[in-house]
């Protein structure tokens, strides 16, 4: 029977949750890297036992641990993230020029074809690549060199490159997203980039339809249709059918279209999930009711999924990298909260159950479907 392994990054360590394909009984590991922030932890699609993690601390900076046994044991890889050339400046919160400074890795995206190749999205926003299993890192500086870099500005959480999507049908194409610059695409393996924000409107910036400056929270893609992208923006849920060349809003009947997480059903490319959050100033569910919303029509028409989720007095948040799906049949959906719960639905969202209730605040959730 197939198994699932859920990799959970939290404010105070990483946890590995495992179950058989029923996804009913779970084993929970002891904390890995106890006391450290684990912004992201993700396994290689080539070899699921190769797992990379972003381990960081305000005291000790960035560390990149790597596992070759599915997260049981770890070794330390490289943590030298040096911007290419003279880093230059971006805009600070007050509009003044501020030098680019490395702070941490937000997201690690292992290659679809090479176990030793992995991408890192960092704060201050830049994209790095390692071709030796995380030992050394090289910036793909064409992104910051796009020309708009000096105009990028941090969002409330920092100026982070938090989303990396690799196109399974085209090894030269990838998508990234930055808060608060927007989404970008390369079609030449990361040498050159262009902003893909046409159709986004952000009323809180000087030019609501600007080419860059949008606070994109997360983007999701179904691997069978890499030209179709779904975005949870600061406000608005958006959809692109042309690889980001243009976007249209699909918030439809959502009770609020603010949120962070978004993901796509493993077997139904038109079925998507979001967790609506009340507002940009109140980062918790509307009315204290934790509800996942599902659209089976690729947006616009949404239904609340509540069975098994707290429907009163719930004031947690679900962060951008804290939702994932497995590829079992029926598709499993997972998300973690800032209150330390990790929920699973083994029936594509119809019903939910807490795997764990009391972890540290969850920063990221990734799922591996294992034979």
């Amino acid at each position, binding site marked *: 029977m197939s198994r699932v392994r859920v990799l959970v990054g939290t404010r105070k360590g990483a946890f590995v949750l495992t179950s058989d394909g029923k996804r009913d009984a779970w084993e929970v590991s002891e904390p890995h890297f*106890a*006391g*450290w922030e684990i912004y992201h932890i993700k396994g290689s699609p080539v070899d699921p036992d190769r797992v990379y993690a972003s381990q960081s*601390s*305000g*005291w*000790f*900076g*960035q*560390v990149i641990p790597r596992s070759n046994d599915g997260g049981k044991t770890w070794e*330390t890889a490289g*943590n*030298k993230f*040096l911007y290419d050339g003279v880093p230059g400046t971006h805009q600070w919160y007050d509009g003044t020029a501020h030098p680019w400074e490395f702070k941490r890795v937000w997201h690690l995206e292992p290659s679809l074809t090479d176990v030793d190749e992995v991408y890192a999205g960092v704060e201050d926003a830049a994209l790095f690549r390692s071709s030796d299993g995380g030992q050394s890192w090289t910036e793909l500086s064409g992104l910051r060199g796009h020309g708009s870099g000096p105009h990028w500005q941090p969002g409330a959480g920092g100026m982070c490159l938090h989303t990396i999507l690799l196109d399974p049908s085209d090894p030269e194409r990838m998508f990234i997203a930055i808060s608060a610059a927007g989404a970008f695409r390369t079609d030449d393996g990361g040498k050159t980039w262009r902003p893909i924000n046409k159709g986004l409107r952000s009323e809180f910036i000087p030019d609501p339809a600007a080419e860059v400056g949008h606070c994109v929270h997360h983007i999701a893609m179904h691997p069978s249709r890499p030209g179709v992208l779904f975005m949870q923006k600061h406000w608005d849920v958006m959809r692109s059918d042309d690889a980001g060349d243009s976007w249209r809003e699909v918030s439809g009947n959502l009770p609020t279209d603010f949120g962070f997480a978004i993901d796509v059903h493993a077997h139904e490319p038109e079925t998507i999930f979001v967790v609506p959050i009340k507002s940009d100033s109140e980062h918790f569910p509307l009315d204290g009711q934790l509800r996942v919303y599902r659209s089976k029509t690729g947006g616009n028409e949404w239904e609340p999924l509540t069975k098994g989720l707290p429907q009163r007095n719930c004031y947690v948040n679900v962060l951008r990298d804290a939702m994932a799906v497995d590829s079992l049949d029926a598709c499993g959906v997972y998300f973690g909260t800032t209150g330390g719960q990790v929920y699973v639905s083994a029936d594509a969202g119809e019903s939910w159950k807490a795997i764990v209730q009391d972890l540290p605040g969850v920063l990221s959730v990734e799922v591996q479907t294992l034979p």
Partner: protein
Amino acid sequence: MIRVELPAHLRTLACVSGEVKVEVGEQATVRAVLDALEVDFPMLCGTIRDHVTKQRRPFLRFFACGSDVSHESMDALLPEAVVRGEEPLLVIGAVAGG
């Protein structure tokens, strides 16, 4: 041999318990100790000082013989008691962060 006491998180990262000992040349300075420490424990590179500038990370402090030597030159000689191994060089995480 210089005795170095690391904060708990860095002991875990370096897979050591208790103090570590490093060999430095005649110039027993904080810089020399950190150079030796990073050779013996490469996983500590970047966690105590910046990779390039070699500046101490802001929330770490160095203490020797009861004194905070964090703001002294990295090339200042350490106290004799530390050089002779009678006292450790302490690397301490600042009490900060809530």
